[in-house]
């Protein structure tokens, strides 16, 4: 048992964004207890920290995973449309996909802020949404390329910004994800209805 060992404080901070106020204290307590009494003692400090991060990632995926899948789907749909229906004017498509992305980040942030009562939770939810979507977007774009790579499609890819754009655009969405998630989080934390804390201790 390692009573004074502490899990990564950033991990604990991030965990807070994916839980209600009611659950954060009890869940973080469970993880801390397991970390100190079992994981540290059997796996060592470094692997114990990795275990803790894996648990935090699990909570993040359960909460922001659906937003990440939706965001990746929008990106891949836009990519597929650009490849199959080339156009000289991308303005309308860009406006629609950008609005959809902003809406997803705002909604993810709003939900996180409303649930946790913590404004910063929105920024973390936005980061998680964009971050978790990255592997889906990269893998999905690769699969599209494997499926469709005839000369017409290759010409359409070049005309729509090239493969470089397909593989850099997801990375560029991380910062807007944090920003719009933060806005959503602030709105969610401010407008949420008052709830019972659920922390009534039994005698």
């Amino acid at each position, binding site marked *: *048992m390692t*009573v004074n060992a502490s899990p990564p404080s950033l991990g604990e901070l991030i965990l807070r964004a994916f839980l209600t106020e009611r*659950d954060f*204290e*009890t*869940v*973080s*307590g*469970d*993880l*801390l*207890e*397991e970390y*100190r*009494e*079992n994981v540290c003692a059997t796996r060592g400090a470094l692997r114990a920290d990795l275990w803790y991060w*894996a*648990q935090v990632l*699990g*909570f993040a*995926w*359960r909460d922001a995973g659906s937003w990440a899948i939706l965001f990746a789907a929008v990106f891949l749909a836009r990519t597929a449309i650009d490849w199959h229906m080339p156009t000289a004017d991308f303005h309308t498509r860009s406006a629609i996909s950008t609005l959809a992305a902003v809406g997803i980040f705002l909604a993810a942030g709003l939900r996180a802020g409303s649930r946790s009562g913590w404004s910063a939770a929105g920024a973390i939810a936005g980061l998680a949404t964009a971050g978790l979507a990255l592997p889906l977007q990269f893998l999905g774009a690769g699969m599209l390329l494997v499926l469709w790579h005839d000369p017409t499609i290759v010409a359409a890819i070049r005309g729509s910004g090239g493969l470089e754009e397909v593989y850099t655009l997801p990375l560029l969405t991380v910062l807007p994800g944090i920003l719009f998630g933060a806005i959503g989080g602030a709105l969610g934390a401010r407008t949420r209805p008052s709830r019972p804390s*659920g*922390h*009534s*201790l*039994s005698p």
Partner: protein
Amino acid sequence: MADTLGTFEQAVMLAIVRLGNNAYGRAILNEVQVRVKRDVAAGAVHATLSRLEKKGMLASRVEAGTPVRGGRARRFYKLQPQGARALNDAWSAVDALWRGLKRPLKGSVRLRASQ
């Protein structure tokens, strides 16, 4: 008939039954891991507990924490009558499926059944 329980939901609820008055988050996680013989994410157990509590199959109460958990509160879970009914139904469903068959099954039984 009550809601049909998944295997993992049954594992979580049976862990609560086994743990009795000591059924709080971390203890449930460890009990489930022992029973299913693999590492289980704390998030999966937490999500299952929350879902079952919302369905009225479990009830919970919060008690003060211990020093090893930094004084953070513990949430204890208890099986409710609706949860017990769902567990009994789950067992009855499996029992009905297996009734009349000798266990363990042998490969030849499966081959004959598929012909």
